[in-house]
């Protein structure tokens, strides 16, 4: 229970800060020249995407350790990270088109970053579906771990295939070799947003983990059926 409260606090702080970052992004950060007001979604979009991908890597790593140690905490963490990763993917997949429509004129485009996130989303959905299809906890943890590891290893290959396509997507500005090209204020806002999303990731995962643990306790006591 304590963990759940801690998680809730972290998430709450994260959400408040998120509002703060948006106020800053909307009012106090200069408007970008070529893309205009719509560019501001970038502050939301990219950090979420980064965490969506990182969450999958973490699922994979936790899965590897799970197969060696069989520690159920690792499995719980993997499941939590996967759910949070799915949510972040969904954020990107909805904010992406919102950003895209005014600039590119279409709701969806097969551009590199969006497509990558779509495939990542499919990986997550598969993972969660597999988990939900197995009632036995030990088998579920084992199979999810296998899929999680495969998913983590698939990520670099999805990167490879997606970057083969010609893209409408703005080229990486911040995450490129050498110094980031963003001017001062924008960079600060972006970094703040990344920090906020990190906080949100941690907050959500902690909450989800705690809920998972509580549910398992209930199941063991025979009160809740398999979910």
């Amino acid at each position, binding site marked *: 229970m304590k963990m759940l409260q801690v998680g809730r606090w972290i998430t709450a702080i994260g959400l408040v800060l998120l509002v703060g970052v948006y106020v800053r992004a909307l009012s106090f950060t200069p408007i970008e020249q070529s893309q205009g007001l719509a560019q501001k979604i970038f502050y939301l979009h990219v950090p979420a995407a980064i965490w969506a991908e990182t969450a999958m890597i973490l699922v994979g790593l936790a899965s590897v350790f799970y197969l060696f140690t069989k520690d159920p905490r690792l499995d719980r963490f993997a499941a939590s990270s996967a759910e949070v990763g799915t949510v972040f993917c969904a954020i990107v997949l909805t904010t992406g088109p919102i950003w895209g429509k005014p600039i590119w004129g279409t709701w969806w485009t097969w551009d590199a970053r969006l497509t990558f996130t779509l495939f990542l989303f499919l990986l997550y959905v598969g993972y969660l579906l597999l988990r939900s299809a197995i009632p036995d906890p030990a088998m579920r943890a084992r199979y999810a771990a296998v899929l999680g590891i*495969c998913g983590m290893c698939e990520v670099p290959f999805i990167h490879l295939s997606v970057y083969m396509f010609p893209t409408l997507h703005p080229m990486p500005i911040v995450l490129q070799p050498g110094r980031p090209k963003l001017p001062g204020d924008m960079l600060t806002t972006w970094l703040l947003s990344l920090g906020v999303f990190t906080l949100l990731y941690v907050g959500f995962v902690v909450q989800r983990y705690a809920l998972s643990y509580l549910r398992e306790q209930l199941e063991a006591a025979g009160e809740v059926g398999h979910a």
Partner: protein
Amino acid sequence: MRSPSLLRHAWAVAAKDLLVEFRSRTAILSAAVFVVLVFVVFNFGRDPTAVSNVDLAPSILWVTFTFAAILALNRAFQLELENQALDGLLLAPIERSSIYLGKLIANLGFVGTIELIGVPLFALFFNVPVLPYLLPLALLIALATVGFVAVGTLFSAMTVRTRFAELLLPVLLLPFMIPPLSWAVLATGRLLAGRPLSEIVGWLNMLAVYDVVFVTLAILLFPATVNE
């Protein structure tokens, strides 16, 4: 002594699977019919002035191969479940990897047969010159097929024990098929359009890396799917 017996047992498992499939023939016939159906429908339903043959043809080809693969994958471990023989396989003094390798070889045999039928038909119906590019095409097809069948064989070992097994397998497999398939389609397109080999070597390399990574991963992870 370890390696040879691994392969020997894998081959025994594969031969058994192929023999069983040959005897019942249902799956391979369905796949073959599907191939012909898709080719015919596509050609009749197409406006000849709209899109050039060579543009969409590679996608069509690979869609049919993928379907054949899913069909093969669904029945691979289903066979063991039906005959309740999986315990027997696990009881035998063989490496777990032999079971995986055997299934992989059998699945590749199945899909390979469909591909052997499909490519000539493809050349015929789509009027696409395949012979000049036969060797690189064969290599390309082989590499891409190993890629998704390797992952599919591993996943099918898991999904066969779940509800909705036949539905779950394609869903799980989808994000894993996209990279090798997209590379294969692009490379096939370039190849059949007569582009120089140097352009597709990059894709062949990526497919080879993909294969090595995932076959190794599958061999390592397979025991976790069958051990209790």
